[in-house]
C-alpha cells in the first residue's frame, strides 16, 4: 500500500456533551477519490474544518504528506498543498471570476507584498488563473462579477480557485450542490479526470456522483465512522443501509 497523502488518526472533537467527531480515522491515498458521506448532522463539516485547519481536534493527529499538521493553521496547511473548496461558496463576491482565480494564483506564487504593479497585468498570474477557469468551463464568465454568477457557476469557480493552488490533495465540500443534472455530470467527469493529479477527499450528498467516482467510501454517523470500503462493500453493508442508505438509495 502506498503511503497516504492525508491521514486522520483517532481524531475526536466535542462541543459540550456533543461528540461531533468520535475517534475518527481515515486516510487518502495517492490517485484516489475517497468520499465521505453521512446524514445531516453527522459531523462532516466539523471533520472537514479540522482537516482544513479551522478547528483544532481535542485528541488525535492529522498527517499531511507525512508531516504532522495537527497544530498547523489553515494558512500553513494551504501552503503545504491542501486545496479546499467550501460548501457555501467563500468567494470574493465583488470580484470577477478572474480576480478570484488570480487571488488563488497569488497565494500559490507568494509575493503578496507588492504594492505598485497591477496584479491583473501579471501575465504569469493570469495564465494560471485563466487555465484554471478554462478547465472548469468558466472561461466565458471570467469577466463576470462573482455575485452575478449562478449558484452552480460559483461551485465551478470554487474548484477553479483550488486548482490554481496546484494542490497535493483536494478537500471538497459538496462541489455538486446546486449544479443541476447536466452540471453534476460535467463536474463528475471533471473530478474523475482530476484524481490522477491529486487525490480528492470528497464530501458529497449526490449519491450518483459518489458511487460513480469514489474508490473508497467512508460513512460518518453521529461523529463515528461506521464503515469504510469500496462502493460495493458500502452498498452491501447492513449497518450502513440501516443508518443511512435506506433513505438515500
Amino acid at each position, binding site marked *: 500500500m502506498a503511503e497516504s497523502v492525508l491521514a486522520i488518526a483517532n481524531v475526536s472533537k466535542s462541543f459540550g456533551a456533543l461528540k461531533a467527531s468520535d475517534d475518527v480515522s481515515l486516510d487518502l491515498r495517492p490517485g484516489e477519490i475517497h468520499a465521505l458521506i453521512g446524514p445531516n448532522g453527522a459531523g462532516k463539516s466539523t471533520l472537514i474544518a479540522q482537516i*482544513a485547519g479551522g478547528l483544532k481536534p481535542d485528541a488525535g493527529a492529522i498527517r499531511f504528506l507525512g508531516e504532522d499538521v495537527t497544530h498547523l493553521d489553515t494558512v500553513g496547511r494551504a501552503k503545504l498543498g491542501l486545496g479546499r473548496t*467550501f460548501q457555501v461558496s467563500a468567494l*470574493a463576491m465583488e470580484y470577477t471570476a478572474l*480576480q478570484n482565480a488570480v487571488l488563488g494564483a*497569488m497565494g500559490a506564487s507568494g509575493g503578496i507584498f507588492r504594492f*505598485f504593479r497591477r*496584479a*491583473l497585468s501579471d501575465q504569469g498570474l493570469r495564465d494560471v488563473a485563466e487555465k484554471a477557469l478554462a478547465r472548469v468551463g468558466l472561461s466565458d464568465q471570467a469577466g463576470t462579477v462573482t455575485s452575478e454568477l449562478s449558484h452552480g457557476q460559483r461551485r465551478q469557480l470554487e474548484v477553479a480557485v483550488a486548482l490554481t493552488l496546484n494542490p497535493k490533495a483536494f478537500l471538497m465540500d459538496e462541489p455538486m450542490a446546486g449544479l443541476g443534472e447536466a452540471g453534476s455530470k460535467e463536474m463528475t467527469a471533471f473530478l474523475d479526470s482530476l484524481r490522477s493529479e491529486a487525490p480528492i477527499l470528497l464530501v458529497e450528498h449526490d449519491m450518483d456522483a459518489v458511487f460513480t467516482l469514489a474508490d473508497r467510501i467512508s460513512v460518518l454517523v453521529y461523529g463515528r465512522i461506521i464503515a469504510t470500503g469500496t462502493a460495493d462493500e458500502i452498498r452491501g453493508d447492513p449497518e450502513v443501509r440501516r443508518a443511512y442508505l435506506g433513505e438515500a438509495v
Partner: protein
Amino acid sequence: MSRETLINIALAAILLAVPIWAHFADEPFIITLSTKVAILALAGVGLNLALGLGGLVSFGHAAYFGIGGYAMGILASHAQDYTPFMEWPFVIEGTNQMPIIWLVAVVMSGLAALAIGALSLRTSGIFFIMITLAFGQMFYYFAISWTAYGGEDGVSIYVRNEFPGLNTLDAIQFFALAFTALMLALIFSSRLAKSRFGLALTAARQAEQRVETVGIKPFQLRLTVFVISGMITGLAGALMADLNRFVSPVMLSWQTSGEIMIFVILGGVARLFGPVAGAAMFILMEHILGGFSEFWHGWLGLVLLLIVLFARGGLIGVLAGKEKADG
C-alpha cells in the same frame, strides 16, 4: 476613460484652480481654505486605505493625525527656542525643516499604528472600533497631561517651517506642497488598490476564509495597510499643524477621528477621490453654513444621514455610479 476617472480629474483640477485664482484675486483666505481641504483630504486618503480597502473601521485615526502634528510642534518649538529635544545619550536638536519634520511624523505615526494595529487587529467589528477609539483617547489624555509641550494649551510656533527652495510663508507655495503630497498619496493609493497586495487585502474584507485557504494570512495584510494608513494620516497631521502654526490635544481627540471618518463617508468609502470630495464638502459646509449659524453641524448630520441611507457610495458614488470591478 471611466466616468469616475473624469470626475476625479475634475476634482483635482478644481482644487488646484481655486487657490490659483484666489492667489491672483488676492484672496488669501480662500487659499488657506483650499490648503485645509487638501490636508484633510490627505488624512482621509490615509484612513480610506484601512477603511475602504481593508474594511477596518478605525475610530482612532486622530492618534496618527495628532502624532504628526506633535512631531511638527515639538521639533519646531525646540528649533525656535534654540534648545535641544534631548541631550542624553546623544543630542537631538529641533528643526524647522519640513522634510525632516515630515519624515519624523511619518515614522512616529507608523510606529504607533504598528503597535496599535498589532493589538487591535486581533479583534474585529465593534470591538475593533472600540479598541482603536480607546487607543486614540490614550494619546489624547497623554498630550493633555504633557506639560512640557503646553498640556491642554498645546504648542504654538511663530514662523512656519521651511522647505528648501520654497517660501512657505507665501500661502500659494504652501498650498502647492500640500496639494503635491495629496496627489502623490492618491497615486500611491490607486496603484496599491490594484496591486497584488490590494487584491488580497480587498479579498480578505470580502471573504476572509478564502484568503486563508489560498495560503495568505489576512492579519499580515491588515497590519501592513493599517501602518501605511497611519503614516499618510500622520503626514497630514504635520502639514495641518504647520498650516495653523499650532498643535494641541484637539488634534488627537475622538471628534477628530470622527471628522476624518466623515470625510471618507461623505465622499465615498473605498472610492479613490472620496476623501477629497468629502473634505471639500465638509469645509464648504463649515464655511458657508457656519456663517449663518454656529449650529451648522446639525445640517452636516442631516447630509450624512441622507448619504448613509440613500447613497452608500457617497458623493463620488452619486456622481459616478457604482464602482466597476477591475478587468
